[in-house]
């Protein structure tokens, strides 16, 4: 009878080699397919949606909802990486991704993404409710089909319209807890929707060469720097107005109002610097600031909610 040591030293069969080639990636490579940094911001905004939502669910179900949203977002990211693997290999920012770097076969990435997408939506429906599951499915399909497969390579409005996918997680989180929608989750959607263009156009300003090389019609490539810088400013004004709308409409308190005002002023200052500037430095700074801005804005929503719950201060 063959011993374990004999099996370890046996020469590889054709099946060994074929399986090893198709599934060559390590667990960390598969995790990288999910775009973990995007997934973490998605999960955080979704968490805020679940906390702000009226009603309550068992903590296990709340954690399940966040897990489903995070995995669903990651699945959409994996499908995006599968579709864009051809251009990812030609761009400096993305050529190290698992598929263009040859660590994972495209088909394996697609199967991984689709499996996670289907599983997360089913689990959301079984554990929470059909509204949340439907919204999650819509989010994944919108990102994978509408943005990635359709808009990204066809129009400079790609990230404007496609940004809806990134704006939906707090809405899904809200729906998971309450089973319905109302004005506040739609305002959260609007905030992220209006945040997306200045965020990605700031990136595109200093990565213009990459996008031009692969033919992705980002706004700086199609319309030039000046138009892009002006549009960044316009959307930044809209974003700041949206960010204070919860207070104006009586859906949030002064903690959020004051904080959103201060953050908005800082964001606008950086947007004006981009508008008035010509170099890459201001755009790089705005890109970094935009991530911190969104995170802090949603932290303020949580803080405001906590204050109101504690009853320390009224609206």
């Amino acid at each position: 009878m063959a011993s374990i040591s004999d099996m370890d030293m046996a020469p590889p069969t054709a099946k060994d080699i074929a399986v090893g080639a198709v599934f060559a990636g390590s667990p960390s490579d598969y995790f990288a397919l999910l775009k973990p940094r995007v997934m973490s911001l998605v999960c955080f905004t979704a968490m805020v949606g679940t906390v702000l939502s009226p009603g309550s669910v068992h903590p296990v179900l709340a954690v399940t909802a966040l897990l489903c949203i995070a995995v669903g977002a990651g699945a959409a990211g994996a499908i995006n990486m599968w579709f864009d693997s051809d251009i990812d290999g030609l761009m400096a920012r993305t050529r190290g991704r698992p598929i263009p770097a040859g660590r994972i076969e495209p088909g394996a990435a697609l199967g991984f993404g689709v499996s996670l997408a289907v599983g997360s939506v089913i689990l959301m429906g079984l554990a929470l409710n059909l509204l949340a599951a439907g919204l999650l499915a819509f989010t994944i399909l919108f990102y994978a089909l509408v943005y990635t497969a359709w808009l990204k390579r066809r129009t400079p409005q790609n990230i404007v319209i496609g940004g809806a996918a990134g704006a939906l997680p707090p809405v899904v989180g809200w729906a998971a807890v309450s089973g319905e929608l109302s004005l506040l989750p739609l305002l959260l959607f609007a905030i992220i929707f209006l945040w997306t263009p200045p965020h990605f156009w700031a990136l595109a300003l200093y990565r213009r060469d990459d996008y031009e090389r692969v033919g992705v019609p980002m706004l700086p490539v199609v319309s030039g720097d000046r138009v892009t810088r002006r549009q960044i400013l316009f959307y930044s004004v809209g974003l700041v107005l949206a960010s204070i709308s919860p207070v104006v409409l009586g859906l949030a308190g002064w903690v959020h109002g004051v904080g959103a005002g201060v953050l908005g002023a800082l964001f606008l200052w950086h947007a004006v610097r981009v508008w008035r500037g010509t170099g890459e430095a201001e755009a790089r700074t705005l890109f970094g600031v935009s991530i911190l801005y969104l995170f802090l804005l949603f932290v303020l929503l949580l803080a405001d909610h906590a204050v109101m719950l504690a009853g320390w201060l009224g609206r």
Partner: protein
Amino acid sequence: MTELDKSRRRQRARNLAVGLALAGLVVLFYLITIAKLGTTP
């Protein structure tokens, strides 16, 4: 370490990751069941 050794090492790592994920799902499904039974009127 040969390429085949590296490939098998990655395969073992993937097997472990899949096993842990499946075990985690079993625990999650159990907890979800308890939670939903507890909230059912």
